[in-house]
């Protein structure tokens, strides 16, 4: 299933947040959205997932999601959004409970996603016992459990320290390589974008418009640390964004 945005604009009262965004998110690819803070990239993600309605333009699902997909558009949040009173197992079963799945099948699904995210040993742990990286892996496992058509990832690694971030990026690459999934990945971190994105959408400061879409052809599993081509891309992206970031920063101070 693809997602198509055409002429999407959005405003909160007087403030124009997004202006005329048209974008194609192809099935089985990861699209990264980068931009300076306040450019509306998180808003864009909420619009894509239907948590908010755009002021103008339309967002379309092209094709039908697979039949075993429980929640076509599934988010992974920056703050993990795990229920602290439920165990890892309980947090994942939460999103299966409303679908009338027999408990044996649900357990199988949970075992499966826990195995894929290397969390099998922590099924009974409470979120407070887990590190930040583990928590985000639980959140990813939860997202995988509903077999989403598109994963909407809102700065999923921003709350983590840099080592954990590296580890999780490896995990995500492995996950994708084994079973490619479709994702919209919002981040302000260019290293993440060049590591995970098949295409990278660079946005201007508010009101957010698309500056440029950069395509990266190198397969994900080959984009390790110190990859020269990636460094080049990242440098290029930074040049694109630098002025915008500076202006956005100054703007925030003057407000």
């Amino acid at each position, binding site marked *: 299933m693809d997602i198509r945005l055409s002429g999407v604009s959005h405003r909160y009262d007087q403030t124009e947040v997004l202006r005329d965004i048209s974008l194609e998110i192809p099935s089985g690819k990861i699209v990264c959205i980068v931009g300076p803070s306040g450019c509306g990239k998180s808003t864009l993600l909420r619009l894509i997932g239907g948590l908010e309605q755009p002021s103008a333009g339309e967002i379309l699902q092209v094709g039908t999601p697979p039949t075993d997909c*429980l929640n076509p558009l599934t*988010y992974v949040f920056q703050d993990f959004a795990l*229920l602290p009173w439920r165990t890892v197992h309980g947090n994942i079963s939460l999103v299966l409970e409303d679908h009338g799945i027999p408990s044996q099948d649900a357990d199988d699904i949970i075992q499966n996603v826990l195995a894929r995210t290397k969390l099998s040993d922590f099924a009974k742990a409470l979120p*407070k016992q887990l590190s930040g990286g583990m928590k985000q892996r639980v959140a990813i496992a939860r997202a995988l459990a509903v077999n989403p058509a598109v994963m909407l990832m809102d700065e999923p690694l921003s709350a983590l320290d840099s080592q954990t971030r590296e580890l999780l990026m490896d995990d995500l690459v492995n996950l994708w390589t084994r079973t490619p999934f479709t994702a919209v990945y919002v981040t302000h971190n260019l290293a993440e974008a060049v590591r995970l994105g098949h295409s990278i959408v660079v946005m201007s400061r508010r009101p957010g418009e698309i500056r440029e879409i950069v395509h990266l052809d190198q397969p994900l599993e080959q984009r390790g640390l110190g990859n020269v081509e990636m460094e080049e891309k990242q440098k290029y992206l930074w040049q694109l964004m630098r002025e915008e970031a500076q202006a956005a920063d100054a703007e925030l101070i003057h407000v």
Partner: protein
Amino acid sequence: MSDQVNTFTIRPVPFRGGGFAPSSRRWVGLVVFVVLIALAEMGTRQGWISALTLPKPSDVLKTFGELYSTGLLWKHLSVSLSRLIVGAALGASVGIAVGVMIGLFSYVRAGLVPLVAALFPIPKIALLPLFVIWFGIDEGSKYALIAFGTFTPTVVATYGAVDNVDRGLIRMGQSFNLSWWSIVRKIVLPGAMPGILSGLRISLAIAIILLVAAEMLGAEYGIGAYILEAGSLYDLERLFAGVTILSILGVTLSTCIGLIERRLLRWRV
């Protein structure tokens, strides 16, 4: 000059980080109790505390013993506890229900928050005669008074707790297409539980206070009636025995809620 300073003033850096770190000293509370009681006992025995001012702690204990051995303790305690349990259960459950509704529905909030704010400061004791007419002089008015007294603080605590439930979690629930009822049951209610329980702590203390007030009218038995009777008879031993029972009741209830909290809120960091 700097050389001189360096050669003459070698000493350890002074420690300035002491205090302001409360640590557990359980026994101190007990010692305070014991010392106060011992002082009272000494004073009343030697006469520098007059019999009008304080009863002998040992006499209070004896009164307590008599109360126990005659079976009256249980008679008073059982009616009081049933009043407390029925009244508080009624008030707290309706309070939680209304509080959750206020937290969830804008119209209910707009309609009821001013009403609750208007009801909250009313001294419930003042309404007792009215309750007697509405609910009868027997158990009805007592249940009503305690229920009403626990209702308002529970409502306020509950809707505050619902308001404070992490919006991110609710958004997460919506993003996974959970039904409205699932979100309320699995996210809002457990998330509001810490606030509700700490509200309940206050509500139950109020319930104990109101127990005495409720037993002012038409109660032959009950801890509150016992205390009031002792007061009107100037029987300080009984008065103190009754007050002690109330204190123990309060501590017990508070401990119970503590246990429930520890059980239900194990997940808290």
